[in-house]
């Protein structure tokens, strides 16, 4: 039955610049300054090594559950394309990106070792705290974009989320609001192929995630998310477009969660070792190393020295973290946080806990009766 075709001039493209073997498409190479290239490399190495260190700390019982980021370190290219006054609205797998934007590593360690103090970022940094409820933070990214536009600030909000997050209604509502109000918000989907045990193919029926942007007449681009040059290029385009009033954009970064979902997860239950091996060949760091070597920006010595520097930084952060842990915290602090001004109920409840803690100390000293 013949019908009229509606003219919808949308298409979804795929951007790749540096291939898994480290071969660059010269015509696409953004030719970034050496300094930036090395900074990107360093950011990725830091992300990898900090992740490895945290896994050890977790296995030693020194920190609790966290979400490893291994394989997704090219995310730093997104933050590299941002300006200081832009807003980062992360999910929970953006540790390298958060660090890039100034979050101290000890803050990350504090969070994952069960201290609420891990949520107190340094003043003045436009990075929101980790958001655990999947997809929900995308709306904050849209709302912040609205505020920037309303204030006439030339700042952009960049929000991260996973492939799984695109199934949540909040994601859809955020895309719709962003498009209707044409806010300067860039949506960055880290399609790492898994949402815990659910593969991308069973998360949604569409061939690409990028095409979901077409539902809002928003530009959607698929990017090799393990190609730091492509990620940078695509992010810079989307961010500068948004900054200059061009509205929101959507990026699907094709990457892979090489490690566990979280340290409580056992991926052997649901995915094959072969698949993981396939993706290890597409490691974002190895191919970038090759590119930088080819450009004579890296050598064995340089790699060693960067690794050493990074290790030292991590150790220093661990030191600050240990000092904090050593010092200990006051449980009574918890009553200070919920409201700008403590309501009478919480004043009373704090007093209850204070008395309890004192009584317990008394009991412990006298080694009597009731334990806890």
């Amino acid at each position, binding site marked *: 039955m013949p019908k009229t075709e509606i003219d919808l001039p949308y298409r979804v493209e795929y951007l790749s610049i540096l291939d898994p073997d480290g071969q660059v498409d010269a015509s696409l190479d953004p030719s970034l300054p050496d300094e930036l290239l090395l900074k990107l490399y360093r950011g990725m190495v830091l992300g990898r090594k900090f992740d490895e260190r945290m896994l050890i700390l977790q296995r030693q019982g020194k920190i609790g559950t966290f979400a490893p980021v291994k394989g997704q370190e090219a995310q730093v290219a997104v933050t590299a394309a941002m300006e200081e006054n832009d807003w980062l609205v992360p999910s929970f797998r953006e540790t390298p990106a958060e660090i890039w934007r100034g979050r101290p590593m000890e803050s990350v360690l504090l969070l994952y070792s069960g201290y609420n103090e891990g*949520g*107190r970022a340094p003043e003045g940094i436009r990075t929101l705290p980790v958001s655990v409820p999947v997809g*929900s933070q995308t*709306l904050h990214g849209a709302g912040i*974009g609205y505020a920037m536009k309303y204030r006439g600030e030339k700042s952009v909000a960049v929000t991260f989320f996973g492939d799984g997050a695109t199934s949540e209604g909040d994601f859809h509502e*955020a895309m719709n609001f962003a498009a209707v109000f044409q806010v300067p918000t860039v949506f960055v989907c880290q399609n790492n192929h898994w949402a815990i045990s659910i593969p991308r193919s069973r998360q949604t029926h569409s061939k690409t995630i990028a095409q979901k942007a077409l539902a809002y007449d928003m530009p959607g681009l698929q990017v090799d998310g393990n190609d730091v040059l492509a990620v940078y290029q695509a992010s810079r385009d989307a961010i500068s477009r948004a900054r200059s009033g061009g509205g929101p954009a959507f990026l699907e970064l094709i990457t892979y969660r090489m490690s566990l979902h979280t340290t409580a997860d056992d991926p052997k239950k649901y995915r094959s070792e072969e698949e993981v091996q396939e993706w290890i060949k597409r490691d974002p760091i190895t191919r970038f190393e090759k590119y930088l070597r080819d450009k004579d920006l890296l050598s064995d010595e340089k790699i060693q020295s960067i690794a050493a520097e990074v290790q030292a930084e991590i150790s220093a952060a661990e030191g600050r973290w240990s000092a904090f842990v050593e010092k200990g915290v006051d449980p009574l602090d918890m009553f200070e946080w*919920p409201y*700008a*001004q403590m*309501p009478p109920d919480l004043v009373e409840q704090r007093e209850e806990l204070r008395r309890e803690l004192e009584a317990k100390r008394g009991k412990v000293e006298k080694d009597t009766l009731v334990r806890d």
Partner: protein
Amino acid sequence: MPKMNMVQAINMALRQEMEKDDSVILLGEDVGRDGGVFRVTDGLLDKFGPERVVDTPLAESAIAGFSIGMAIAGLRPVCEMQFSGFSYFAFHQMESHASRMRQRTLGRVGVPMVMRAPYGGGVRALEHHSESREVYWAHTPGLKMVIPSTPRTARALLVSAIRDPDPVVFYEPKAVYRAFREEVPEEEETFPIGKSRLALEGKDITVISYGAMLRPTLEAASELKDKEGIECEVVDLLTISPLDDKLFTESVRKTGRAVVVHEAPRSFGAGAEVVARLVDKSFLYLEAPVRRVTGFDLVIPYYQREQDYLPGVFRIATAIRETLEF
């Protein structure tokens, strides 16, 4: 002082705060061109323009989440849920983020937003348009839950809510919207969130109520006084959470008896908390069980039966009398 109904009083509060502070932004479904389905925001679009009075797409979670983003970035959004019955679409945004952001960041990031919603029965509306479920919000730490009862308290409390550094859920008793007028000063007036007020002084029994139920409560009190000489002391909660238990527990220390009135379902309703506080703080003064005069534990029926569901003067007066006779 000009006399206003609650719709006008809320409209004035919004207008004046928007005039004072350009970070105050209204958003919601039909709040702009249409002036809101109850006309609460009438005229504000023309006065402040579409950037500040924002007609949004139809999505409550987005309205809340967008507001959270705005508030984080320094604005003071006042968002509207067209009816409280649809605010649950936004529940996870309020629970997961609005209520927690300050705690999550140890005070670094606040969410100074107001979520307004008409609530409650008595207006012969369709399903989902008559509920009273303030406890959902009151039981959520980090939020404040406010329910004014009159035009003047609505105006003063809304101004306080807009200026509050923390998120406030503001339920407007739609049965009161146009039910009566009250003098409301043109000049600035605020009322502290977290404080209740004495709506009527009396010595025989304390009746605790709020929102749309305050009127039948006061009517019952007045009839009981006129016809039987019973003097009720009536406490209007105004803020449900954090709950001000000082006024009513002290009142009961004087009267020895109490009745609590709300239209929400009884079980796990706000009345239970009032009783628990009374037991906690005025136990030795209690001379009779505290009766809860409330809606029943079912969804408020459609309008042919809603007056049988809602507490009315008769039900309230009977409970007061029976409590006094205990």
